[in-house]
């Protein structure tokens, strides 16, 4: 359970740290190729986790370009895979959230003497309900994910076994009660984490 939380938490942190600025930038600025970037981000939201797992596996395998890092079948590889899955969710939903803020507001904020950064920050603050939704959606997407972590983590007991891969293993072994119990723990974990996120959101509000 602790590993599940560490891997998902770290992946969510990385995806948020990268996805929020990228989403805000795409949502707030106009540049050539913006349509293509938007298309890629939206498509990324539907990225099959198992495909992400496969690509990360190939990159980190001995013969892959990052094989020398020796990350395959470690929690680090799982964090990489989950960050890649979560990133487009955070970025695309952040983009949608900032685009939902009245464009006139940006102009009025600028007319108050705000710099570009201050304007961007103010718009992000105004879009905080959408930002919370983006982070919650990404969290939901990766905490319940099994394909990628199974491929790149290897489901090694005591090292890379997380709740979802443990459920798969228990089910395969016919230990349905254990699988169900783990499923309930996973749900409770998700419930608790979302409650904390919403609480934080409420405080910001």
């Amino acid at each position, binding site marked *: 359970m602790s590993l599940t939380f560490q891997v998902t938490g770290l992946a969510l942190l990385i995806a948020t740290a990268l996805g929020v600025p990228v989403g805000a930038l795409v949502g707030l600025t106009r540049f050539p190729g913006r349509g293509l970037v938007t298309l890629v981000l939206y498509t990324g939201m539907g990225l099959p986790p198992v495909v992400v797992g496969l690509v990360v596996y190939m990159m980190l395998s001995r013969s892959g370009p990052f094989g020398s890092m020796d990350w395959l079948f470690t929690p680090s590889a799982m964090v990489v895979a989950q960050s890649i899955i979560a990133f487009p969710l955070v970025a695309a939903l952040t983009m949608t959230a900032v685009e939902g803020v009245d464009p006139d507001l940006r102009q*009025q*904020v600028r007319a*108050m*003497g705000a710099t570009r950064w*201050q304007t961007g920050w103010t718009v992000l603050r105004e879009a905080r309900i959408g930002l919370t939704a983006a982070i919650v959606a990404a969290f939901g997407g990766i905490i319940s994910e099994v394909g990628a972590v199974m491929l790149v983590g290897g489901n090694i007991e005591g090292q890379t076994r997380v709740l979802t891969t443990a459920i798969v293993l228990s089910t395969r072994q016919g230990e349905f009660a254990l699988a169900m119990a783990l499923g309930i723990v996973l749900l409770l974990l998700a419930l608790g984490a979302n409650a904390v996120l919403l609480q934080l959101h409420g405080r910001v509000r």
Partner: protein
Amino acid sequence: MSAAHPPAFELADVRHRYGPRTVLSISRLSIRRGETLGVIGPSGAGKSTLLRLLQGLERPSEGTIKLDGASVPYPIPLSLARRITTVFQRPLMLDRSVRDNVLFGLWVRGRKDRAPIGPLLERLGLSHLASAQARQLSGGEIQRVALARAMAIEPDVLLLDEPAANLDPANVERVEAFIRDAQAHGTTIVLVTHNTHEARRLADSTLLLMEGAVVETGPTAAFFESPAEARTRAFLGGELVY
């Protein structure tokens, strides 16, 4: 307003287009420092566009705008932009309290002192609403918060787009008194209004815009009492319906 006052804004051969449509075409216009210029005209005359150009939110398609004798470069530098502020026709509130909305302009300037806003709120009859969520206020209250938000930063130039729209007579009086205070402090004001009476009460000089062009401009008393242009007379007489 004495002609001895140097110009704050000088517009020369300014044209502004949205696509193929020219929305503003002003050969020459001077707004003197400390002056209140009333801009009247029918809807779609280019009044709000003029304010957007003066605020530096848009670059004119052609021509130059000078502020204190120097051409305004684009994008407008922060040091210039921060001397000017606009109260928009449809002011938008941040999703925060009234107090935090009014403090916003100070926050962007890195000034955290809260002292100046108490009297501001009081003069605009907003003290009791300081902690209220700004977005939940009525249109008239939002209008007054927007005015307080603009004045909190003590701008050199205040651009007002229909500041008394949505207000009941008591609050019109309050807002006009507030504008007079700003005038007394030497703030240069451009007041866009549909309300010719308001222009007459507040403006030192008045300008009539129609279809993006200046029809007539002059000292307010002369403008209203003896307009030189037939179109001005027709507009003031309510004969021009748009």
